[in-house]
């Protein structure tokens, strides 16, 4: 297990405590995170900053002393701060652990600067997010134990110009994802064997699954199920029955997170509103 020093800069005591609780309890930790008070920290690997409190003098000082420091910004809106790592305060509990693990993985791969200290990095096997390949048709993987749902999604996605593969259960999906990449993955939640939440976590751990938009499509309507989806790393959570126009809108939103409009049209995507 690799260790990382995480400096907490200007965080509310409640947020700092929540981070501590989550990091203490999270199962299957790949890395060890040592939380330190930003006001007292010398150097650090990662800084978590309350972006709603303005510029952090602690962050400035730590940045000057820490090569490759990565900053994660927390704010009420989830959009404050600079850089790519920003979290809405209300979803801190759901997203902070996965984001920290993801940042730590990237640091070990060398994508975000050398880890400041501690053990040698693990073997590097994961590529960065791949740039879209022009000319290729977009592809989707649909994972559902219901043949009727698989067929319905396949027909609907083909109307949008996507190639579609299907899998009946989690193991089949993981085997497929180990051999090829997709632009979009649809997951059912309740399936025989591994459920959709656990499958989503495993998808995120695969080289081909780290950045792929994942849409969960389920009849489970509890807001706590929706939160479980977010915790597992899904991008969109749709509850059945879903109106076709809502489905198309969700697909479009997921694809535009990764591709520009020009890239989408170059890959035969036909938007339907």
């Amino acid at each position, binding site marked *: 297990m690799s260790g990382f020093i995480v400096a907490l800069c200007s965080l509310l005591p*409640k947020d700092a*405590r*929540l981070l501590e*609780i*989550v990091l*203490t*309890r*999270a*199962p299957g930790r790949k890395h060890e995170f040592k939380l330190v008070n930003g006001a007292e920290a010398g150097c650090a690997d990662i800084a978590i900053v309350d972006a709603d409190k303005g510029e952090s003098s602690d962050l400035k000082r730590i940045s000057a002393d820490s090569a490759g420091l990565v900053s994660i910004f927390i704010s009420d809106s989830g959009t404050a701060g600079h850089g790519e790592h920003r979290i809405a305060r*209300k*979803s*801190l*509990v*759901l997203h902070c652990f996965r984001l920290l693990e993801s940042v730590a993985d990237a640091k070990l791969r060398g994508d975000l600067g050398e880890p400041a200290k501690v053990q040698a990095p693990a073997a590097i096997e994961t590529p960065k997010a791949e740039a879209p390949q022009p000319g290729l048709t977009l592809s989707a993987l649909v994972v559902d134990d219901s043949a009727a749902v698989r067929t319905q999604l396949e027909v609907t996605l083909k109307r949008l110009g996507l190639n579609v593969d299907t899998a009946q259960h989690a193991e089949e999906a993981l085997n497929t994802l180990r051999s090829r990449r997709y632009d979009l993955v649809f997951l059912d939640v309740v399936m025989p064997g591994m459920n959709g*939440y656990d499958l989503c976590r495993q998808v995120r751990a695969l080289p081909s699954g780290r950045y792929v938009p994942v849409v969960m499509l389920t009849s*489970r*309507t*509890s*807001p*706590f*199920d*929706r*939160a*479980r*989806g*977010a*915790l*597992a790393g*899904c*991008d*969109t*959570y749709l*509850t059945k029955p879903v109106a076709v126009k809502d489905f198309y809108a969700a697909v479009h939103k997921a694809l535009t997170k990764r591709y520009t409009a020009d890239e989408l049209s170059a890959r035969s995507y036909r938007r339907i509103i």
Partner: protein
Amino acid sequence: MKTPSSAFALVVDDDADTLLLVGEIFKIAGYSALTADNYETAVALLAQNPAVILLDVVMPHDLCNRLVAHLASMGSSVPVLLMSSMAPAQLEIERRLLVSAGVFAPTVLHKPFWVDALLSALSEALPSGSSDLALL
């Protein structure tokens, strides 16, 4: 004691970390969480019809048993999630005792619990809800 919203959860526990974590999860899901660490406060909040009750088993002054007796006497159908760090088998026995007393206790939470375990238990206790929450 705060005024409850229309959908609120009652959390009866004396552990600050649990109260903080549970409170945040409820907020994410669109509920407010109100806490009680004594019998009188808990009974007053019960009268305002919480959507779910999270109840620590081991608390001072026999608080858990007294609240269970109160819930049973009022014929409450509010789901109760028992929480404890006691052995799983023992906690399951406690849950069955609640069920035999006429309290709706669908599942339990073993402390310390990870967020997913809490969400899973709450999903079981409150299987449907608003689908317009922006969590992702």
